[in-house]
């Protein structure tokens, strides 16, 4: 049946009345006071709003949360930069104000070599990393002319931590602003989901900056600490770039222990050092044992020691490549002993559990050597990691 316009509007009014009646009946007391009606309307409105504008409301809440996180990241980043500046002024005693030069350093970038034709990419990457490292060191030395080598290494690590925080802040801010600008729920949601991990990383870098400013050993130095225990009171020499070596004996086996040159913040190039040592001994090496800190899974205990096979070394992979290539060339078994810790523990002051694990690792090395080599054999023990606050 055809319904005329006035009748249709009358129907609509009746419908609305009906809906309102139903809504009003939801009142807990069934009362008909003005406040009771108003409350029911509000509840009804809220259900309606959440039904149709749920996603917008959710993204508004996420934007608020991200806004807070971006502000916090900015604060952490500025704090780390201020710490770097203060330390440079204290230690380096520069003649000019280093603020602008430091800001420039924090904006530096690194372009990875092209990987469309991967042959020889390790050499190219290694070369670029060397150039970057030398440039960074030279820039820091220019900022802090009075700093000793060890202090300059710590400053370099401190500036690197500030650089990482600066980059983290800029990336998060970029996606936050992009999400806000495009009102893209999914960009905002992805950033919100990653936020706890990002904030954890930022706090770890902030802790690292403080540790490097003071020259305190960090959790990542577990391997270096083990090597330093083996090297203690033995004659040391420098092989390759920033790597120290000392010879000792364990259970009648010749042990060559190596670590990065400390006590300044340094990781050295253990890949090159191991290759040099193997070549020096014409490949007559019974075993290579690598000791390093490794990321634990949530729920695992900090300082737990585990053994495995392979080259235990982090970074972009160039050092691992060299060790694997050399070990394969001479058919040398490579064993790994790791000390477990979280990302936060790896770059903040070394925890007691990690420091105490060093003696446990030495016991494991002894057992490994006894079981897999014979007297008179040569074993290389490489302590991998940042050696800040650990001499040899």
């Amino acid at each position, binding site marked *: 049946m055809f319904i005329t316009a006035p009748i249709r509007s009358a129907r609509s009014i009746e419908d609305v009345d009906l809906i309102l009646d139903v809504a009003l009946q939801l009142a807990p007391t069934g009362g008909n006071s003005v406040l009771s009606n108003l409350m029911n309307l509000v509840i009804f409105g809220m259900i309606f709003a959440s039904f149709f504008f749920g996603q917008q409301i959710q993204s508004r809440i996420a934007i608020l949360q991200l806004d807070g996180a971006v502000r916090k990241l900015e604060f952490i980043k500025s704090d780390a930069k201020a710490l770097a500046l203060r330390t440079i002024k204290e230690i380096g005693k520069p003649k000019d104000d280093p603020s602008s030069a430091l800001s420039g350093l924090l904006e530096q970038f690194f372009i990875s070599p092209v990987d469309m034709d991967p042959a020889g990419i390790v050499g190219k990457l290694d070369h670029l990393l060397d150039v970057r490292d030398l440039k960074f060191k030279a820039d820091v030395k220019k900022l802090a002319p009075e700093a000793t080598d060890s202090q300059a290494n710590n400053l370099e690590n401190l500036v690197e931590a500030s650089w990482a925080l600066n980059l983290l802040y800029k990336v998060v801010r970029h996606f936050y602003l992009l999400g806000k600008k495009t009102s893209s729920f999914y960009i905002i949601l992805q950033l919100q989901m990653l936020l706890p991990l990002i904030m954890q990383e930022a706090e770890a870098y902030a802790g690292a900056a403080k540790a490097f400013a003071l020259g305190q050993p960090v959790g990542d130095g577990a391997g270096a600490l083990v090597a330093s225990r083996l090297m203690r009171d033995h004659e040391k020499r420098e092989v390759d770039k920033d790597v120290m070596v000392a010879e000792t004996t364990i259970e009648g086996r010749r042990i060559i222990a190596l670590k990065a040159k400390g006590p300044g913040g340094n990781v050295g190039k253990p890949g090159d050092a191991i290759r040099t040592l193997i070549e020096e001994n014409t490949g007559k090496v019974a075993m290579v044992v690598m000791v390093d800190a490794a990321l634990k899974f949530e729920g695992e205990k900090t300082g737990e020691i585990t053994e495995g096979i392979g080259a235990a070394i982090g970074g972009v992979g160039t050092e691992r490549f060299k060790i694997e290539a050399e070990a394969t060339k001479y058919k040398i078994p490579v064993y790994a002993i790791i000390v477990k810790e979280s990302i936060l523990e790896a770059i903040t002051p070394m925890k007691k559990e990690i420091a105490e694990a060093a003696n446990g690792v030495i016991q494991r090395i002894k057992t490994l050597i006894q079981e897999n080599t014979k007297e008179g054999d040569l074993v290389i023990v490489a302590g991998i990691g940042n050696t800040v606050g650990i*001499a040899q």
Partner: protein
Amino acid sequence: MEAKRSGMYSYLMVIFSIIILAWAVWAMYNAFNFQQQGNTENFYFYAAASSIAIVLAVSSIMQMRRRMLLLQSLAIKVLSIILCANCGFKVVRAFTQGDFVYKEVGNCQQCKGTMRIDSIYAEEPPKKSRP
């Protein structure tokens, strides 16, 4: 000093939140009483006020809890463990700038041997054991 002041602020905020929470529980009890009496206006007022107060108090307590955990983690002490190579005499002191593992830090009080920093590590404050 700053950490102490910050900790004090957190405790005061928690106490304030607990007071608000207690009031919210009382308001909720009143709301139910008003509902039974058929006093709808008062019921809505107290129920709404109580709900808002509960949300605010609980969120404030949660935030303060996180803040206190953060403050606790910042209270980590870094210690230098100094050992005498001759007699094993051990001294534990707070880390000072310039300390590093194997740094010689003078002579032993007992045997006049060389004292060296044996290790440097961060120690967390002892955790309160739950009954």
